[in-house]
């Protein structure tokens, strides 16, 4: 084992810990397109939000305190895999420049961990 090997293992362990830290239940959903806020909605109300912009089409669904993307016209469809509900989590569709982020219940609340 050389110094660099140990440094790399340390980074891996830190990443694992940060990934596994439990996050609080979210309250609001922030939908952004191309880095700008598109819509902000509550996580408690069930709704279907169609998103149509110059970058692409997606459908975001909020149901029983969770958010997921049911439709995307992007080629990989990776965003259709996740369902999120915890504060700080997000679903990202890189081709359509869309991000759906769950945030804390109140704006003032500090609950997003920044690394």
């Amino acid at each position, binding site marked *: 084992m*050389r*110094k*660099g*090997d140990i440094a*790399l293992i340390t*980074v*891996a362990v*830190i*990443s*694992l810990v*940060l*990934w596994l830290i439990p996050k609080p239940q979210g309250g609001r959903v*922030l939908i*952004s397109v*191309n*880095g700008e806020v598109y819509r902000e909605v509550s996580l408690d109300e069930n709704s279907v939000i169609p998103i149509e912009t110059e970058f692409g089409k997606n459908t975001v669904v909020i149901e029983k305190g969770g958010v997921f993307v049911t439709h995307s016209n992007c*080629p*990989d469809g*990776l*965003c259709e*895999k996740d369902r999120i509900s915890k504060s*700080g*989590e*997000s679903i*990202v569709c*890189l*081709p359509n*420049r*869309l*991000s*759906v*982020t769950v945030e804390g219940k109140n704006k003032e609340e500090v609950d*997003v961990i*920044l*690394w």
Partner: protein
Amino acid sequence: MVNTRKITKLAAFISVAVILGYVESLFPPVAAGVKLGIANTVIIAALYIHGGKDAYIVSVLKVVLCMALFGSMTSFIYSLSGAVLSLSAMIIAKRSKNFSIISVSGLGGLCHNIAQFVCAYIIIGKGVLFYLPVLCLSGILCGVLTGIAAQLIVKRGREIFGKE
């Protein structure tokens, strides 16, 4: 200097890297940004057998060819930034002599994913922040796996191609 022999050798490296990149694109990714990066074995082989400058040529041409053949402009920005940062880090790590070949590859995987993360951060915004630990971890793990493969290739490659 550039001679026919060297051009032929590098062309062989590039074509193998492009084919591996293509084969990998046939498999659906496990999650966004998480993939093995098997073409990295060729880049490491080029780095250890021929040196940093030639590895750059192989790496950048591989990305350009993959974009032209089966990619898109968006993925090109991500791929190129990932390739350049990852190879730069690997060259420095190799020179420092503090890294084994496997952890050079692990560091390359990590830097590849960090570069892609930075691109995503610029394009998408802070919504991608939570994903950084996943990208770091998967980058290191996949880099280590390709590094193990690369170690075997470098050993045999040196016998075939000669050290320089």
